[in-house]
């Protein structure tokens, strides 16, 4: 299973997104705002998910903003920074 698909499943499950399947989320779709519709509390939950599943501490907000832009950006950030993939 690709990292991108893993992330989509994780986000749907951990953030309890109703009525959305992994195939509904495009790799380059925006996660926040008009895309998937995540909000600021979800951003904090994403930090927790990265720590829990990929052992990544993401504390720099500027880096987080870029990494959380889309599934593609998030997967790239994980590939760069995690030993667990």
């Amino acid at each position, binding site marked *: 299973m690709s990292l991108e698909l893993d992330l989509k499943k994780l986000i749907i499950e951990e953030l309890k*997104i109703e009525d959305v399947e992994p195939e509904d989320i495009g790799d380059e779709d925006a996660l926040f705002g008009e895309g998937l519709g995540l909000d600021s509390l979800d951003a*904090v*939950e994403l930090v*927790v998910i990265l720590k*829990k599943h990929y052992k990544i501490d993401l504390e720099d907000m500027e880096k987080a903003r870029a990494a959380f832009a889309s599934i593609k950006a998030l997967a790239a950030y994980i590939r760069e920074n995690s030993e667990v993939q």
Partner: protein
Amino acid sequence: MRLAILGIGPVCALGSGIQSLRTGLQGKVRPNIEEKIIPTSHGEKMLPVYQPVAEGLDRFIPKRALRRVDPFTQIALLSTYLAIEDAGIAFNDKSRVGVVFGSGYGPTRTTFKFLDNIIDDGDIGASPTHFANSVHNAPASQVSIFLGLTGPCSTITCFEHTLSNVLVTAWDWLNQDVVDYVLVGLGDEYCDVLGFAAVGMNAGRTKDMQPMNFNACTFLPGEGHITFLIAKDKSHQEGYAKISEIRMRRDLEEVKASISNDPVIINASGNLQQGKSFLKVQQKQLKSYSNLYGGFPTSSAFDLAVGCVSMKDRKIYPVPESQKKEVKLENSIICLEFCREDEFNIYKLE
């Protein structure tokens, strides 16, 4: 002043809604009991646990709106909506509706999940959603938010005294004319830690709870939430019953003097310490229905609901598994809640 109980929303092992409780009393449905595996230093133990059958919340709230609401608060919301629906009342002035909830242990599964994450991953592993849901006041707050209620909102946790304190608070708000209605909710959640503690106290040695056997430990834990819609007693009101007395921390002598020929519903749940005290009450008319919903600190609120249903139906239902038949109810019912050795709370329903 008497408290009128206008609507009831139980969510327990029998199902969701007042009719599920009634059919349980009629022996037409059996409680949902799940076997849990509890790891101990002496190996794994099996523990039967009464688990709620929560159905129908999506009739009241869209699923998407519930994604940050944990299961404990979800059953509290469900029981509240069911109580309001049962009463058939629309709140015209939402500033005149109070919410007072009670729980012995609160949202235990979420609380331990939150703590486990901090232990495993440090501060960064602390989910803000888990934190928000782990607060004892979360269910009452969510009820206020979803229903748009702006009256007083509070949560009381006082173990075996939770029901009495919650009812006294409701009584006080109504008596001071702060509100016209109070949503009184009580519930507890099972978790592995409580299961471990229960096994340590010999729970699970029998597969079934025998609440009227005061000489053996037959305790089995349970989980559920129940909400009552309560108002000041007015003669024209429909509803179930009136609470005419709430007496807290009374000794054996006063308990014996309080009981005439009325049926007495007790919160015996197979706990030996409780059993020793109930044995001393020495009354033939003691009845327990705990083997319909399991044992937990606020399960006495379900006893109160059984009393209310009995008052409305004008009959005393036989104790589950007793093979006896229902009998006609003459006047009133006493609910007797064990507090500690030889000390009880007394509630009178008329």
